[in-house]
C-alpha cells in the first residue's frame, strides 16, 4: 500500500516519472459543458465565467469546488487580456479579440465557438508587422490579481497548479492572423514573411511567459505553453522538414526561455505543450525543444497510439489526457467510458508520467454521467502499483 499523497505531491511524483499513490486527474472543459456539469453536480451556476486559456477557446478555469467534489488534482489558472476585458465589438458587428482578430459567434447545439473571420494580416507585408497592434504582455490587465490567486490556491488547497500565460502562440496564432489556408501556402510561397511573423509572435509568447513565470512560477507544477495545433487526425499538417525549418527554431527559443525561468523558480515544475493530432514524427523534436508534458494524449489520432508513445518516449515524456472526446465520451455508454479508462491506465500509467483527463476540452455533447464515470473509474483502476 502506497502512502496517500496530497494532490500536489501526486502530480509532481508522476511528472518526475515515479509512481504516486494513484493516477493524478485533470480536467478541461468548455463553458457550455461546465455549466451543464455544475448543474448535474448540484452546484450553483453563474451566467458568466471568465475565459479560460484564451479569450476565444471557450474554455473555463474549472473552479476549486468542482475539483474538490470530484477529488481531482489540478487547478488551472492563467493570464487575462491586456485590458482585463473580453471581446470588443467592432464597427461591423464582429467580436474582436486581444490580437485584433475579428470573430463571430457560431452556435452548435448546446454551445458556441468564437470562430475567426477576415484575418487582419491576410494581405500584409513584412513591413506591416511592425505597426500591428500586438497585445502587450506587460499590461497590468494581464496580471491583475493573479499573484494573490496563485498564492491563495497554493496555501489554502493541496492541489497542483497549472498555468498558461501565453494567449495565442506562434503557428496557431498565425493561422488566425493570416488565414488558415494562406499561412500554409505562405510556408512554400512566402517563407520570409512566415519567418518574420513567427519571430514577432515568438517575442510576444516569450514575454507573456516571462512575466507570468516570474510572477507565480514558484507556485506551479506545470506551465502550459500557448496551444499549437500541428496535427490533423491522420498526419501532421506540415511536413517534419517544414516544421524543422519554419517552426522549431521559434519553439527552441520560446520553450527554452520558459523552461529556464521556470526551473529557476521551481526546479520540479514542468513544461507542458498542447498540440492535437497525429504528431508522432516530431515528438523527439518537441522533447528537444523542452516539452516535458505532452497535452493531449489523443488515443484515436493516427500513429500516436498511447501504448506506442509510452513505449518509445515514456522515459522522457509525461502525458495529459487520454480519454477520447471524439467518440467514447460523447457517444459511449458509461461502461465503455470505464473500459477505456482501464485500458488507458494500463497503457500509460505504469512508472508514472500520466495525468488522466479527457483528450481535449469536454464539450456539451458529453453526458455529465460519462464525465463522473471517467473519474470514478480512474480512481478505481488507477491505484499504484497498477495491477491490470
Amino acid at each position, binding site marked *: 500500500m502506497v502512502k496517500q499523497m496530497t494532490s500536489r505531491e501526486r502530480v509532481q511524483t508522476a511528472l518526475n516519472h515515479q509512481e504516486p499513490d494513484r493516477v493524478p486527474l485533470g480536467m478541461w472543459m468548455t463553458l457550455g459543458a461546465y455549466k451543464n456539469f455544475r448543474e448535474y453536480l448540484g452546484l450553483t451556476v453563474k451566467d458568466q465565467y471568465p475565459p479560460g486559456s484564451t479569450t476565444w477557446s471557450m474554455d473555463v478555469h474549472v473552479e476549486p469546488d468542482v475539483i474538490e467534489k470530484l477529488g481531482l488534482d489540478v487547478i488551472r489558472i492563467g493570464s487575462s487580456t491586456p485590458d482585463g476585458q473580453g471581446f470588443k465589438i467592432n464597427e461591423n458587428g464582429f467580436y474582436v479579440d486581444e490580437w485584433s482578430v475579428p470573430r463571430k459567434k457560431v452556435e452548435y447545439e448546446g454551445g458556441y465557438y468564437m470562430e475567426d473571420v477576415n484575418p487582419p494580416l491576410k494581405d500584409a507585408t513584412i513591413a506591416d508587422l511592425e505597426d500591428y497592434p500586438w497585445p502587450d504582455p506587460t499590461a497590468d490587465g494581464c496580471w491583475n490579481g493573479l499573484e494573490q490567486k496563485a498564492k491563495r490556491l497554493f496555501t489554502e488547497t493541496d492541489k497542483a497548479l497549472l498555468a498558461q500565460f501565453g494567449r495565442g502562440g506562434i503557428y496557431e496564432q498565425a493561422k488566425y492572423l493570416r488565414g488558415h489556408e494562406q499561412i500554409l501556402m505562405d510556408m512554400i510561397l512566402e517563407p520570409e514573411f512566415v519567418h518574420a511573423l513567427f519571430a514577432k509572435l515568438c517575442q510576444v509568447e516569450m514575454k507573456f511567459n516571462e512575466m507570468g513565470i516570474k510572477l507565480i512560477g514558484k507556485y506551479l507544477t506545470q506551465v502550459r505553453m500557448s496551444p499549437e495545433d500541428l496535427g490533423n487526425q491522420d498526419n501532421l499538417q*506540415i511536413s517534419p522538414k517544414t516544421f524543422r525549418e519554419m517552426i522549431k527554431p521559434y519553439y527552441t527559443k520560446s520553450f527554452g526561455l520558459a523552461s529556464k525561468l521556470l526551473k529557476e523558480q521551481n526546479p520540479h515544475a514542468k513544461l507542458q505543450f498542447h498540440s492535437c493530432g497525429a504528431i508522432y514524427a516530431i515528438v523527439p523534436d518537441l522533447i528537444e525543444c523542452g516539452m516535458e508534458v505532452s497535452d493531449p494524449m489523443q488515443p484515436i489520432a493516427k500513429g500516436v497510439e498511447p501504448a506506442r508513445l509510452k513505449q518509445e518516449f515514456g522515459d522522457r515524456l509525461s502525458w495529459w489526457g487520454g480519454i477520447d472526446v471524439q467518440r467514447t465520451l460523447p457517444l459511449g455508454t458509461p461502461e465503455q467510458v470505464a473500459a477505456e479508462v482501464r485500458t488507458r491506465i494500463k497503457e500509460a500509467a505504469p512508472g508514472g508520467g500520466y495525468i488522466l483527463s479527457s483528450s481535449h476540452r469536454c464539450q456539451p455533447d458529453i453526458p455529465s454521467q460519462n464525465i463522473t464515470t471517467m473519474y470514478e473509474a480512474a480512481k478505481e483502476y488507477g491505484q499504484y502499483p497498477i495491477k491490470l
Partner: protein
Amino acid sequence: MSVLEQLAQSVIEGKINEAVSMTQQALAEEIDAVTIIQDGLAAGMNEVGRRFKAGEYFLPEVMVSAKSMSKGVELLEPYLAGDENSNTVGTFMIGTVKGDVHDIGKNILIMMFQGAGFKVIDLGVDVPPEKFVQAAVEQKPDIVGLCALLSTTMPMQAKTIAAFEQASCRDQFKIMVGGAPVSQDWSDKITADGYAADAIEAVDMAKELLGIA
C-alpha cells in the same frame, strides 16, 4: 515531355506560374479545354492526392498544388461554356454542416473530386439542413457530402439527413458523411449512404455509390 505532362508536373510541384503558362501553351496547341483539364491539371492533382494519402505531401504542398490547378482552370473556363456537364462522372454537392466553419478538409476534398472528374457544388460552411435540401432539390447533384470537424456538430449530419427525409427527397440523393470524429459506425447509425476517412477514400466511395468504381 508533352505539354500536358508538363502541365501535370507543374501542378504536382505546385508551380503556379508554370501551370498558367503550360495551360496557355496547351490552348495554343489547340488542345481542347476538357482534355487539358483531364490529362493535365486533374492528372496532376490526382498524383498530389496520392502523395497526400501516402504521407509524402502535407497541407502546404496540397494547397499550393490546388492553387496551381485552379489558376489553370480559371483560364479554361471561357472555353468550357456549358461543356463541362457532359464530361463529368457525376455531380457532388458538399458543405460543412451548421455550427461548423472548418473547411480545409472540405476544400481538399473538393480538389480531389474535381481531379477525379466530378462537377463540384460547394455550399460553404455553417450550412443549415434546409439549405442543403433546397440546394439539392434545385441543382440535383448525384451525391451530397456533409462535413463536420467537431463531435458537437456531428449530430447536425443526422439532422441534415432527417431534413432530406422530411422533404421526401432522401431517396433522390446519395448522402456521404466525413470529418475527423466521424466513423463508419456513426455513418451507419445516421443512415448515411457512405463514409470515408479521407479525401481519396471519399472519391472511391463516391464512385462506388454511383456504380462507376
